[in-house]
Structures are given as structure tokens and as C-alpha cells.
């Protein structure tokens, strides 16, 4: 239970239209107050446990995503928030969109919606908590994602 009580999140905005972002931020504000679960929106990946990704991946932010992911110490959980982050959403066909977050890094839980309600995001965080706990018990490490300049993922 040592992890589940203090999930610190880092919010990574990839290709999001802001709709999901503002709902993520809304989770932290008084009405939803995610800090009740110990959630803190921490600025640096070095201190984060849960990576909250909004928006799909494009060719410019793919390395940013990988970098941030690699810089989160284990155990860590990735939460894809919104249709874009889950599958590419409405933009999945755009020329500069690679796809959902899971094309690049392993995702542990998805939150549907465009954009999802804060309640849904809180659900996602709560789901992430138990995954986090089991990861820490099983000593499951996130794998280092290779970063090669501006490389294109093969499965895109």
C-alpha cells in the first residue's frame, strides 16, 4: 500500500486540443480535488509516478514523450486520457499524427471520452493506483524506450 496513497502525476500534453488538458487540470481544482488521494501535479518526471498523457502523438513530440517516460523512476504507470491519447481519436488519420500513445510507450489504462469528464479521469487515476501497487509488488519495471533522433516508429 505504500504507493497507492501518494500518486504524483506528471501531465504530458502531446497533441491535445486542450479539451482534455483543462479537464485534467480541473481534477486538481477544488471541485474535484484530486489531492484527496494524495495526487500532486509534480513538475518533473523524476518525482512522478503516474504519467497522464493527453492527445495523440505526432512526429515532433514523440521524442518528448519518450524522454519523459524514460525519466520517470520505476514503478510507473501511464494513463492515456481522452480519445486522442487512446487511439488518435478524431485526428487518427491526419498526416502528422502517428496515433495513440500506446504506439510509442506502454499504456496501462485508458480514459475514454472527448473530452472525458474529471470524474472519468479520477477513475483513471484510481485504476492506475492499483496497477501501480501491483507493479511495485511484482517489481515490474518499465522498459527503457529507445530514442533515436527523430525516428518514426515501425508500427505507426
Amino acid at each position, binding site marked *: 500500500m505504500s504507493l497507492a496513497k501518494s500518486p504524483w502525476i506528471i501531465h504530458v500534453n502531446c497533441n491535445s486540443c486542450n479539451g482534455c488538458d483543462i479537464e485534467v487540470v480541473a481534477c486538481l481544482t477544488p471541485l474535484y480535488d484530486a489531492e484527496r488521494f494524495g495526487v500532486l501535479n509534480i513538475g518533473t518526471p523524476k518525482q512522478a509516478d503516474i504519467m497522464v498523457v493527453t492527445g495523440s502523438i*505526432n*512526429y*515532433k513530440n514523440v521524442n518528448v514523450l519518450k524522454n519523459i517516460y524514460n525519466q520517470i523512476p520505476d514503478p510507473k504507470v501511464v494513463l492515456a486520457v481522452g480519445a486522442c491519447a487512446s487511439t488518435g481519436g478524431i485526428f487518427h488519420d491526419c*498526416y*502528422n499524427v502517428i496515433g495513440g500513445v500506446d504506439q510509442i510507450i506502454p499504456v496501462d489504462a485508458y480514459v475514454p471520452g472527448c473530452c472525458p469528464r474529471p470524474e472519468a479521469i479520477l477513475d483513471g487515476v484510481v485504476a492506475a493506483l492499483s496497477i501501480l501497487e501491483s507493479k511495485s509488488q511484482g517489481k515490474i519495471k518499465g522498459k527503457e524506450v529507445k530514442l533515436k*533522433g*527523430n*525516428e*518514426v516508429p515501425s508500427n505507426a
Partner: protein
Amino acid sequence: MLENTIEATEIKNGAELLKTVEGLKNDGYRYATMICLKANDGHDFIYIFDKDYKLKNLRYFVKPGEKPKSVSGIYLCALLIENEYQDLFGLTFEGLAIDFKGHLYLTPNSPKAPLA
């Protein structure tokens, strides 16, 4: 031809464009934006200026292979849209205030000139 096209003054060449834009600036026009369309292998530019909620449009045809002149020397704010068209249409503007060299939005590995 299309119905209800927007009104626009035709511009013949780059020098005239710069002169007209300079004149518009002196007349107190604000640079709104510029639109780029593919037309006859070349590109059609529509420059949009605004004064007192009235639009003033310039239409300028860029021949294939021609390097259009940048107006960012006159209106600095034009640099963003011109850089955007360098990315999206693979154009090369002459005299850009800050030249992102086709990397304003796109990286070396993303699709090249997707709107071209």
C-alpha cells in the same frame, strides 16, 4: 469559375507586392493573414489586411518554382504564416525575418510539404 469569390486586387510581381503592402501599412492597415492555395501548378496567395473591420485583399500568383518575397520585413508578424507555408507547401520565401527552414511544425522525419 466559382461563384461568390472574395474581392481582391491582383498583384503582378514580387516588387509590386512589397510596394503595395508597404503602402497598406502606411495607410494604417493591419496584417490579418495570408492564404495559400494550389493553382495551376503554382500557388495563389491571398493577403488579407484589415482596417476598421473592412478587409482589403491582395491576390498574387506565384509561378511554379518562383521564390515568393516575404513581407515579414514590413509586417514582422507575417513571419509565422510564411514559415508555415514553407512547411506545408514546400515553398521558400525570400527575406524571412526568422527562417525556420521548413521546421516550424515539421521535423526531418515527418511528411514533407503535405499540402503541396
